[in-house]
């Protein structure tokens, strides 16, 4: 038996504490507090949900057209949203807004070089955002961007937005070397840990380590290759099983079982992922105009049971009927218990003492488990006297079919919609009255909700903002404009001889800086 002396234990503890302190204050990276990973080797990973606007031979390396949106392989943004959905500086070192949250000044990291050796300055940031503000949905709020010296920029927004740094972290908003808007980004030159050496715009990109990377000592891998297997889950899994791929991102829960218990495979769950939205359309004659009917549906859904049945013990999370994810620090747990008696009472109060038959509910298998969620939910609602016929539609053209509205009546379908994980501001904004996803929610509660949203936009203090978001969620709990019962946790698999490959609730924010071979 090996014995360890007290002195050795104390020495090790002291060193660990010192290393942890240095990592916390930024003297060393947290990774370097551990034994240093061995540099070298390569990683080939397949992505099953790629960019839906892939480019061509001329523009396939542009961050907007980057094959899998996880374009932090090649590029960096000013800010990064970490695995816990917290903001972290990337090419920016700090940021500050005026009182109205309308003017933002951002300090840039000095000494950062692009792949070609040129220095990144405010000129590049301005040029990049001149492009993004016309081409990126989330960046259209930028009215102007200007340089203040070499390493500082100022953004003026069309209106205050206290969560603007999240926009700076968006996967489209990467920093590219300055160029005219029609030329910028085409070269594939970024500041990221890898630089492209070959690509097929719709199939794969091959990269090698960027020796000028600003995070000294990173990346560990010498080569990285991303292969598009969008919509071809079987192909990606076959490639993994045959040894062609070292990792596959965004695996469906149904595929995971075959990898459980395998020594050569690691399964990595993110803290969150997309959630399933049940839109309750409110139009003349809709049963969902009555709040009590909506509340009855909410009460008749056992969220925990759905998550357990559909996702098992690890793959899912329970929602709270708002587009916020449970991994978001602002998330409030859903306060009501599953209660069929309460549901029946609410229905009786609403004039349906014998139960209610809802219009047909439509969904498309955006994710393979979506049909199962609503099959289980339909059975569950029956226990409370709610009959909900369900019908599956093809993915292709589903959204357009769901919202088609030739007569302009907003009489959209009672249907499913996918909701991705974003910052709380954008997420909660999805329940705005003029959005189909809220079912065109209206009334006093909706008005109060939007007043609070407007207040949050100009509230710079995060804890004060959190209070506002809590109140918004409480309004949604009470008024039930929509139902968001469960979500998935993103899953990736990789070979056991790979380490440092963390999963992320926003699949596009995965970083490969720390990945190494064992």
């Amino acid at each position, binding site marked *: 038996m090996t014995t360890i002396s007290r002195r050795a234990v104390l020495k090790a503890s002291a060193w660990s504490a010192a290393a942890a302190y240095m990592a916390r204050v930024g003297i060393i990276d947290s990774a370097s507090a551990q034994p240093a990973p061995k540099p070298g080797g390569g990683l*080939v990973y397949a992505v099953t949900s790629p960019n*839906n*606007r892939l*480019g*061509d*031979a*001329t*523009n396939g390396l542009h961050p907007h*057209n980057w094959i899998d949106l996880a374009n932090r392989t090649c590029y960096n943004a000013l800010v990064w949203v970490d695995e816990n959905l917290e903001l972290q500086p990337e090419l920016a070192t700090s940021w500050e807004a005026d009182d109205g949250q309308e003017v933002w000044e951002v300090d840039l990291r000095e000494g950062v070089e692009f792949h070609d050796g040129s220095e990144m300055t405010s000129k590049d940031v301005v040029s990049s955002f001149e492009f993004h503000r016309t081409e990126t*949905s*989330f960046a*259209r709020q930028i009215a102007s961007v200007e340089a203040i010296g070499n390493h500082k920029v100022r953004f003026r927004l069309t209106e205050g937005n206290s969560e603007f740094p999240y926009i700076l972290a968006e996967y489209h908003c990467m920093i590219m070397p300055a160029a005219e808007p029609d030329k910028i980004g085409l070269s594939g030159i970024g500041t990221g840990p890898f630089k492209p050496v*070959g*690509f*097929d715009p*719709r*199939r*794969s990109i091959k990269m090698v380590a960027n020796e000028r990377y600003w995070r000294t000592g990173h990346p560990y891998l010498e080569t990285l290759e991303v*292969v598009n*297997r969008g*919509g*071809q889950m*079987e*192909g*990606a899994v*076959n*490639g993994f*099983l*045959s*040894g*062609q791929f070292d990792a596959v991102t965004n695996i469906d829960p149904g595929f995971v079982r075959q990898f459980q218990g395998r020594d050569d495979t690691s399964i990595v769950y993110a803290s969150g992922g997309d959630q399933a939205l049940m839109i309750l359309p409110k139009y003349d004659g809709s049963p969902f105009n009555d709040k009590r009917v909506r509340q009855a549906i909410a009460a008749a859904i056992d969220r925990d049971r759905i998550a357990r049945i559909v996702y098992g013990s690890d793959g899912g999370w329970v929602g709270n009927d708002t587009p916020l994810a449970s991994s978001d620090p602002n998330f409030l747990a859903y306060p009501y218990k599953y209660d069929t008696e309460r549901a029946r009472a609410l229905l009786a109060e609403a004039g349906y003492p014998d139960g209610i038959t809802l219009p047909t509910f439509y969904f498309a298998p955006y994710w393979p488990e979506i049909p199962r969620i609503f099959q289980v939910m339909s059975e569950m609602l029956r226990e409370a006297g709610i009959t909900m016929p369900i019908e599956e539609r093809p993915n*292709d*053209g*589903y*959204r*357009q*079919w769901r919202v*088609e509205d030739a007569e302009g009546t907003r009489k959209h379908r009672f249907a499913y*919609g*996918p*909701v*991705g994980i*974003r910052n709380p501001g*954008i997420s909660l*904004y*999805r329940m705005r009255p003029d*959005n189909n*996803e809220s079912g065109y929610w209206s009334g006093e509660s909706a008005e109060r909700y939007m007043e609070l949203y407007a207040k949050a936009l100009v509230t710079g203090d995060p804890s004060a903002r959190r209070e506002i978001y809590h109140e918004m969620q409480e309004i949604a709990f009470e008024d039930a404009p929509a139902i968001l019962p469960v979500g998935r946790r993103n899953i990736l698999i990789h070979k056991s001889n790979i380490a440092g490959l963390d999963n992320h609730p926003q699949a596009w924010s995965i970083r490969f800086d720390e990945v190494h071979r064992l």
Partner: protein
Amino acid sequence: MFAAIARRISLSFLILILVSLFVFLATEVLPGDALDVSLTDDDLAVLTPEQLAEMRAELGLDRPAAVRYLSWLSGALVGDFGNTIITRAPVADIIMGPLRNSILLALATTAVAIPVAHFIGILAAYWRDRAPDTIVSTSAIVGYSIPEFVSGNALILIFAIWLPIFPATIVLYTDGPILEMLAVSILPVATIVIGSIAYLSRLLRLGLVEALVSDYVERARLAGVSEWRVVFTHAVPASLVPTLNAAALYVAGLLSGIVVVEKVFAYPGLGLELINAVLKREVPVVQATVFLGAVGVLLMNLLADLSIIALDPRVRRSAGRG
């Protein structure tokens, strides 16, 4: 004869225009357009209807359908298939690589399938209703009945996962070297060949069985011609004529892309390109791909007709009179 060929070419031209119109109308009735598909639900959640209308106008998607079709047709007639809607890339650049790969896959498959199918068909026909025929016919029915996604995945399981000899999925670039593309295409070719041999060998067997009991074969035998010569110089050529049209259609089908096989193996061909283009509502790419497929079918049919004229004196005389 030349008048007949000219008539055939004119008719083909008309068919091409009708096909392009039909494809355009089919894509028009699909819900959504290229802009809708290029945006994520998250994008759509923050964009206003006015912003979407502005973006649609920038891409020319607000123009009437008839204007967009005629604009495409006028270009296509002079070989210009236009640009993609979202990225404005020339369609010709997008489809050239996949077209090359589909032709490669078709040629490789044909080079294997036709000789093997002939050999098997001849065996079955010569020993009709005996053991070789029973084995060949039964195997053919089984081979023909197995969907390609099943046979493809079975081959992947055996030869890529259990015995890691061939790649399970093709990761080569679309413009990868031809020899490398052929090297990684063994499983896709084998998958298509399994179904093709079954189909073609049964077709050939049927023609050859009829030829082997015909009067001229009987006369050749009575004249003392060796059995080997009877089969290969009298019966086989005669049996080819009725199968030419079917074989031409088969090859044309390969040219237009074995969609399922390309999907299973991620083979970078025209079929896979077509699926992606339909999903992304890239109508110019869909149009060009289907257009090329239709050209392939018509060309192969024309080739089959010309071959029949060349091989069959009765048809030649009839065409000459007409």
